[in-house]
């Protein structure tokens, strides 16, 4: 894959789904698709960091949002970059309603399992984009 693939979680801090989005991206980056995918701080988009903006313009972007407010998606699109795929944590949660995260940041076993399922879903999206290229 020639183009860089950037996956950006919302990292919301009010509910566990923000942390699940973050942990799923770390699992994708470190365990499932190392050297194929990277992330950038969402905050750097907010201050229009030129290095990050250039990276976004030249790569594929997947956003991962913890809730329907779609903050990661909105913040990327506010830079003028069209997101290639927008994923919501809740899509995975709906399929595994028995898994209840323990805390907002300390997710517990159930929360980390949800993050794992989300990471697998993201890996599938990466594969789709790689085929499109």
């Amino acid at each position, binding site marked *: 894959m020639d183009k860089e693939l950037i996956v*950006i979680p919302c990292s*919301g*801090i009010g509910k566990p789904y923000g942390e699940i989005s973050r942990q799923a991206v*770390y699992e994708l980056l470190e365990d499932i698709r190392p050297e194929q995918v990277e992330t950038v*701080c969402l905050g750097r988009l907010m201050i229009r960091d030129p290095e990050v903006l250039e990276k976004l313009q030249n790569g594929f972007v997947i956003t991962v949002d913890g809730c329907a407010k779609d903050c990661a998606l*909105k913040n990327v699109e506010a830079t003028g970059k069209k997101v290639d795929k927008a994923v919501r944590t809740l899509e995975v949660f709906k399929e595994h309603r028995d898994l209840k995260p323990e805390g907002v940041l300390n997710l517990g076993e159930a929360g980390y399992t949800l993050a794992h399922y989300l990471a697998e879903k993201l890996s599938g999206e990466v594969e789709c984009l790689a085929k499109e290229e």
Partner: protein
Amino acid sequence: MPGATEISRDLKPFKIGIVPCNGEEICAGSVTRFACRKVLDELRKGKTVTICLPLFIAGDKGEQQFASRFPTITVDGCDKRCSAISTERLSGKPSYSIVVTDLLKDKGLTLSESPRVLSETDKQAVDIIAEEIAKKVDELLGEAGDA
């Protein structure tokens, strides 16, 4: 005024908004998050609220209005100061701005490389940063009480 109902000023409790950066790329970003939640859930429960930076920037009026009406403390993982800059742009200058890496440098503490899992030293850093935020919260609440 006879017959008038006195409205207690206590109806609106004075709270401090804490705005952590996202910091996905670095360990200091994760330390920031855990420290802010520690203040919110344990150290100054009921006196603080966290403001979700991406939601704030995405144009959420509730978050922006809170930050423009109440004092804020921004907590940034690194000296890019994304949270401080964004807060100032949208809701006015924060009352305090904390940069985790600067504060830890002063304390002689070095964080691990991983933003994913916190080491024992990283957890120690969380406690230090949380205490610093709590101290600033007290200062601001003290100032409000003096007014």
